[in-house]
C-alpha cells in the first residue's frame, strides 16, 4: 500500500467530521458516506500512468469518472443473484429452508435483500418477482395476495434506501405479474425500479396495457426489448440498477465512464479526437478498470468468502464489467463547433453520423481490448450508456439528446434513439414524459413500444407529465421528497439528493412532453 500525505489525511478527517454533523443526512447515509471516506485513504490499485490528470480534475475538464467506487473495491459494483436457485434451495448461511408458501417466499426474499451487497450497499436487483412468486400465488385468495404483495413492496420501499434497485417482470403474463402491476399503480413508490421484459407476440397486449396503465400512475415499469437482450445474453439476463443488462448469477465488477464532451474539448479537431485523444482516454480507462477488477478478484477475497459465492447464488465466471460513456451529444456538438460545421446532434444527419462513427470506434476498441476475468462476455467489457450523476453540469446522459433540444416531433426523437441503442447491452434508455390524453388511449404507448422494439430500440421509460414520482436519469424520485430536502428536512432515500442535484443541474423537469 502506497503512502499518502498528512494533508490528505487531515482533509479526509475533516470530511468525516462534517459528515457526522450534517443535519440533512440520515444515520444510514452518514455511515455509508464515512465508509467511502475511509476507503478513500487507501492506495492499493495499480493505476495506469496518466490516469490522475484525466480522473482527478474539475467537472468541466475531467475525462474519466469512476462513479465513486472507491479506492479499494471490496465487492463487485452490481450483484445479480440467482434468486430462482435461492427459492429452490434456500440458504444455509441465512438459515433459510426453501419457502413452501407465499408467506415464507416473501419473508425469505425480504431477508435475502438485506444481504446482497453493491456499490450502494443495497441490492441493485431484487429478482423476477412474477416468476419467483407465481408458484405460491394461489396459496391465498386474490384479496389476500394483493395485501401481502402490497406489504412486501412497502417493506422494500422503506428498507432498500436507494432507487438503483430493480425488480423484473415478464415477458409472459402471469397472475402475480398482473397483481404486482395493480398494486404498484396504487403505491406510487420510488423503490424498486421495475422493468417489464417485453416481446411482441410473447407478452400479451392485455398485460402490456396493464403495465402502461401502471407506468402512467407510478412512472414504472420501464420496457426492455426482450428479443434484443435475449439475442445478446440468452434468457438468463436481468435488468439491474438503472437499466443495466447483466447475467443472472453474476453482475458487473465495475463501471467507469468517459466524459466524451470533455475529451472533445481537449481535441484540436475531429481528426485529433478520433486519432489521438479518444484512443488515449479509452486505453487508460480500460486499464484502470482492469486494475480494479484484478484487485476485486485477486485480493479483496470477496469471491472466496462471501456466502453468495459459496452457495452458488453468484459465481465469478458470470461477472463482466461495464465500459461507460456520457455526453455523446456534447462531444459531437463541440467537435462540430471546432470545425465550424453547422448542425447539432439529434437534428442533423451529419452530426448523427459522427456520433455513429464515434460509437463504432469505441465498440471496436472494446472488442480488441482483453479484459481480465470477463470470460462470459468473450473477454471484453459491455458498453454502457451511463445516465449521469447529480454533479454533472452540461453533461448529457449516454447518447441522449440534451433536454431542451429534443426534436419537435416524437417520431424524429425515436429515430435518433434507433441509431444508438443497439451499442449498449449493459444498458441505455430514453425517457419520455407523456401527455395525460394517453390515459384514455393507452394503446398509443403500446404502438410506440412495439414500433420502437421493431426498430431496435432497447429500453424505454415513460411517466405522466404531472406525476409526483418521476424518472430522473434512470432512477425514480418523488418531487415532493425533493421539496422536503430543499426545506432542509431528512429524507429516507439517498437517491432523493441525487434527484435534487439533477433537477437543478440537468433541467430534468423541462423534458419535452410527448
Amino acid at each position: 500500500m502506497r503512502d499518502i500525505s498528512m494533508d490528505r489525511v487531515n482533509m479526509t478527517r475533516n470530511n468525516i467530521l462534517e459528515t457526522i454533523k450534517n443535519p440533512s443526512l440520515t444515520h444510514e447515509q452518514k455511515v455509508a458516506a464515512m465508509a467511502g471516506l475511509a476507503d478513500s485513504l487507501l492506495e492499493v490499485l495499480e493505476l495506469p500512468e496518466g490516469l490522475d490528470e484525466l480522473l482527478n480534475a474539475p467537472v468541466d475538464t475531467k475525462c474519466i469518472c469512476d462513479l465513486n467506487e472507491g479506492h479499494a473495491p471490496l465487492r463487485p459494483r452490481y450483484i445479480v443473484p440467482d434468486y430462482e436457485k435461492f427459492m429452490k434451495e434456500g440458504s444455509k448461511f441465512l438459515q433459510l429452508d426453501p419457502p413452501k408458501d407465499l408467506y415464507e417466499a416473501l419473508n425469505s426474499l425480504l431477508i435475502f435483500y438485506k444481504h446482497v451487497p453493491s456499490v450502494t450497499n443495497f441490492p441493485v436487483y431484487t429478482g423476477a418477482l412474477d416468476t419467483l412468486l407465481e408458484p405460491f400465488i394461489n396459496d391465498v385468495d386474490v384479496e389476500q395476495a394483493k395485501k401481502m404483495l402490497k406489504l412486501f413492496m412497502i417493506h422494500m420501499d422503506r428498507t432498500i434506501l436507494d432507487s438503483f434497485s430493480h425488480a423484473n417482470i415478464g415477458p409472459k403474463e402471469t397472475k402475480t405479474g398482473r397483481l404486482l402491476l395493480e398494486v404498484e399503480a396504487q403505491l406510487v413508490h420510488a423503490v424498486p425500479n421495475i422493468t417489464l421484459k417485453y416481446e411482441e407476440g410473447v407478452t400479451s397486449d392485455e398485460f402490456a396495457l396493464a403495465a402502461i396503465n401502471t407506468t402512467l400512475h407510478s412512472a414504472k415499469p420501464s420496457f426492455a426489448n426482450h428479443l434484443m437482450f435475449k439475442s445478446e445474453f440468452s434468457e438468463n439476463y436481468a435488468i439491474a440498477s438503472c437499466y443495466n443488462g447483466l447475467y443472472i448469477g453474476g453482475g458487473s465488477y465495475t463501471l467507469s465512464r468517459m466524459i466524451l464532451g470533455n475529451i472533445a474539448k481537449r481535441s484540436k479537431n475531429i481528426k485529433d479526437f478520433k486519432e489521438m485523444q479518444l484512443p488515449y482516454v479509452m486505453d487508460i480507462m480500460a486499464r484502470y478498470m482492469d486494475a480494479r477488477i484484478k484487485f476485486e478478484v485477486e485480493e479483496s477475497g470477496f469471491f472466496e468468502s462471501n456466502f453468495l459465492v459459496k452457495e452458488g447464488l453468484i459465481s465469478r465466471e458470470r461477472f463482466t464489467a461495464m465500459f461507460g460513456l456520457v455526453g455523446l451529444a456534447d462531444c459531437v456538438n463541440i467537435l462540430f463547433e471546432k470545425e465550424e460545421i453547422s448542425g447539432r446532434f439529434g437534428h442533423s444527419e451529419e452530426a448523427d453520423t459522427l456520433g455513429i462513427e464515434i460509437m463504432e470506434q469505441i465498440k471496436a476498441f472494446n472488442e480488441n481490448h482483453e479484459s481480465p476475468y470477463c470470460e462470459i462476455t468473450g473477454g471484453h467489457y459491455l458498453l454502457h450508456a451511463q445516465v449521469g450523476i447529480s454533479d454533472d453540469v452540461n453533461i448529457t446522459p449516454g447518447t441522449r439528446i440534451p433536454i431542451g433540444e429534443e426534436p419537435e416531433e416524437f417520431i424524429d426523437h425515436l429515430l435518433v434513439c434507433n441509431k444508438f441503442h443497439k451499442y449498449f447491452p449493459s444498458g441505455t434508455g430514453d425517457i419520455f414524459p407523456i401527455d395525460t390524453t394517453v390515459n384514455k388511449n393507452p394503446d398509443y404507448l403500446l404502438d410506440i413500444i412495439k414500433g420502437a422494439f421493431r426498430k431496435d430500440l432497447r429500453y424505454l421509460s415513460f411517466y405522466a407529465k404531472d406525476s409526483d414520482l418521476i424518472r430522473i436519469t434512470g432512477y425514480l424520485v418523488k418531487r415532493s421528497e425533493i421539496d422536503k430536502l430543499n426545506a432542509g428536512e431528512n429524507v429516507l432515500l439517498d437517491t432523493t439528493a441525487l434527484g435534487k442535484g439533477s433537477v437543478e443541474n440537468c433541467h430534468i423537469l423541462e423534458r419535452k412532453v410527448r
Partner: protein
Amino acid sequence: MKAVVNKIITFSTVDGPGNRTVIFLQGCNLDCKYCHNPETIGLCVHCGNCVKKCPNGALSIKNNKVNYDINRCLQCDTCIHVCQNGSSPKTQMMSSQEVFDQIRKQIPFIRGITVSGGECTLYPDFLKELFTLCKEAGLTTLIDSNGTYDFKKDVELLNVTDGIMLDIKAFDSKQHEKVTGSNNNIILENVAFLAKSGKLYEVRTVVVTELFDAVETVRQVAKMLKPYLAKRDIRYKIIAYRPTGVREQYSHYEIPKEEYLESLAVILREESFENIILL
C-alpha cells in the same frame, strides 16, 4: 389525385385507436357555429390579405398566388385570424403519394391513419388512393366525417376504410340547421347505414346547450344505434364546447358543466352503450 392539405400530425393520441398519423384536409360543406378550427372551412382565394399582415415576412405573392415560407413562420396564426374566407395560407396541394410518403416515416410506430378536416369526404378519390396505399403498408384507415357524404353509393371507398367517426351535431333537423346551416337528413341516414354495415367506429357530439337539445340528440342517436352494438362496439364521444379556436362571434357560448356531460353518459348507459368518452 390531389387534395388540399391543412396539416399532418405525425403521432396522435386522440384520433382513433392507438397511435395514428392524422391528415387534415381543407374545406368543409357545413358551417358549424362552434367550429374549433374554422380555418379549415374555406379554400384560399389568394386575395393576399394575410400577406400584408404577416409580422415576419413568411408570406408573399408569387405568380398571383400566396406563397408560404415555413422557415420564416413564427406560428403566430395572424394569417388565420385575418382571413375573410375561413382559410389558411399554410395549406398545400398534395397528391395521395406525397401524403403517403409523409406517413411512411412513422411506420412501424403507428397502427394506422385518420383523415379529418375540414370535411375529408370532399375528396373521395384522393381518399381511395391514399387508403389503398396505406392498406398495402398494413395500416388501418379511419375517416373523420361530418356525415354529409353518401357513403352507401361508394362501396369502393368503404372497402378500403376500416371505420368512420361521425359527428352528429343535432338530432332535430331544424336545430341542426341552426348549428350548421344545413339539414341532417343524409347524416342520419349515414348513421344507420354505417352502423348496419359495421363501419361505424365512433359518433361524437359537441355539447352547446344554447344551440340544440343535447339530451334529446344523445338519446335518439343512442336508440338508433342500439340494435347494432352487438355487431361492432361503437364509441360515443361527448365533447364539451370550449371557446378555444372558435370564431370570435361564436366564442361566447357557455361551457357545459361536467355533471351535465355525466348526465348524458347516464342516458347512453341506459341505451346499452359501454364505450363512452367525455372530453
